[in-house]
């Protein structure tokens, strides 16, 4: 596996191929399986991602505590906003949908984690639909996302309990931004800048779910994570370069995570979880959960 995005970008550039090409080759070598089998696995992941998007958009799901559910559908049926009818609104709807399915203990693809599972399918399937991109290129994009995620896991962390939400929805935004840029025809170098731009926008983001449940703010943080990814994609595709290389931004995320107070690392001891309303809602809902035997 690659431990550095810069190395992967150099390899791809030297051979004049996409990042997904080198990602698939390295993964095939690591797993001792042909590239075709890795692509098959990614194709299955894509099916599960799409099913989660569709399931969430129906709008009838409730999380186990009842704190979240039904908001993804509002992005389809609710009143217009300034960005209605654009891919932006659709991407948000899809990101919310997957995370609502997750909160209801439905089947999702951890991408990279369950808590951040809405960002990647939201961004990729939303933009693929808007731009008429076929499934094989989506599969390539997932391989690139996997490469970026593996680098983050190696250099920093993919755990809210270790690194806060910047390691979950933040990492997901970096993966989604990079993957989408490749899918939309960007160069490996642009993929790197998109990843850096998305990850820098989530630095310091804490993990503060109410009652410790992956529900609130997690569902909405997947939508805002997707929005950050879209901003990064738009900037990178326009040719904007971020001066700090992606690897160093990822290292920074790890360093911030390591020094983050334990209250902000998925313990429900700080942040939104510790607000008066957060504490009250968690208490009520967890009481309801216990009474229901859940």
């Amino acid at each position, binding site marked *: 596996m690659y431990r550095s995005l810069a190395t992967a970008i150099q390899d791809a550039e030297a051979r004049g191929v996409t990042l997904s090409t080198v990602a698939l080759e390295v993964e095939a070598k690591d797993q*001792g399986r042909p590239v075709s089998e890795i692509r098959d*696995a990614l194709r299955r992941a894509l099916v599960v991602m799409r099913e989660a998007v569709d399931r969430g958009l129906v709008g009838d799901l409730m*999380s*186990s*505590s009842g704190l979240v559910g039904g908001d993804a559908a509002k992005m389809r049926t609710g009143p217009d906003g300034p960005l209605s009818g654009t891919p932006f609104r659709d991407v948000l709807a899809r990101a919310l949908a997957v995370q609502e*399915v*997750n*909160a*209801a*203990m*439905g*089947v*999702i*693809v*951890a991408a*990279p*984690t*369950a*808590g951040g*599972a809405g960002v990647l399918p939201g961004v990729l399937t939303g933009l693929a639909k808007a731009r008429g991109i076929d499934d094989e290129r989506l599969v390539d994009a997932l391989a690139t996302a996997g490469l970026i*995620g593996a680098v983050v*896991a190696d250099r920093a*962390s*993919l*755990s*809210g*309990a*270790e690194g806060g939400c910047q*390691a979950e929805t933040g990492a997901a935004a970096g993966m989604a931004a990079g993957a989408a840029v490749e899918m939309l025809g960007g160069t490996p170098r642009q993929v790197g800048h998109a990843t850096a731009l998305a990850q820098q926008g989530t630095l310091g983001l804490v993990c503060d*779910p109410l*009652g*410790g*449940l*992956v*529900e609130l703010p*997690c569902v909405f943080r997947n939508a805002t994570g997707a929005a950050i990814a879209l901003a990064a994609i738009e900037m990178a595709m326009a040719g904007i370069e971020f001066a700090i290389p992606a690897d160093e931004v990822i290292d920074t995320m790890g360093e911030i995570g390591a020094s983050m107070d*334990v209250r902000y*690392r*998925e*313990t*429900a*001891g700080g942040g939104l979880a510790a607000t008066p309303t957060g504490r009250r809602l968690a208490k009520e809902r*967890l009481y309801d*959960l216990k009474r229901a035997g859940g």
Partner: protein
Amino acid sequence: MVGPSSSHTAGACRLGLLARCLVGGTPERALIELHGSFARTGEGHGTDKAIVGGLMGFRPDDERLRTALEIMDREGLDYKFEKTTLGDDAHPNTVRITLERGGRKSQMLGASLGAGRVLVTEIDGYPVEVPGNSDTIVLVAEDVKGSVARIAGLLADAQLNIATLKLTRKERGGDAFMVIEVDERPNEEVRDAIRALSWVKWAFRLDKVSA
């Protein structure tokens, strides 16, 4: 996978799956001690359901995880949960599982590292590092000369390629603990051949649990 948390649900399920291998199947009794974030926020994440589901052999994408506690009750399995503190060095998502099946008792300490990745750090008091992304053979043997060569020979005869091999012991001349990651899944015959060695006290295969 089934939501809502890759650390607390998928990772927890995988730790349950690894633990059950130590007693060769679904344990009849288990004490599940949760540390750190597992203890504080585990209930809301379904950690309890996921570990129980894993112990019963459900994989992380099995929708039965949602009702694992009900299934456990129906099957008459005696699993208990406790919150514990394992010290500052322990990863925030750590669990200690003490389990029993038939006459066999075992204890495993493991952590969920994020994104569903896990690491088993202790088996029956022996320090180990088993990430569970390869099929793994664990065994306890008397500290005799040539034990590694003998085991390696058995694996070679079965056409199994060793990826990693680690040998630890608590003291000189004490029991040796061997952890062997292999590239292909060993069959029952290999395990039985290892178990048939007079100086091997017990041997188990930890099945690969990664996606």
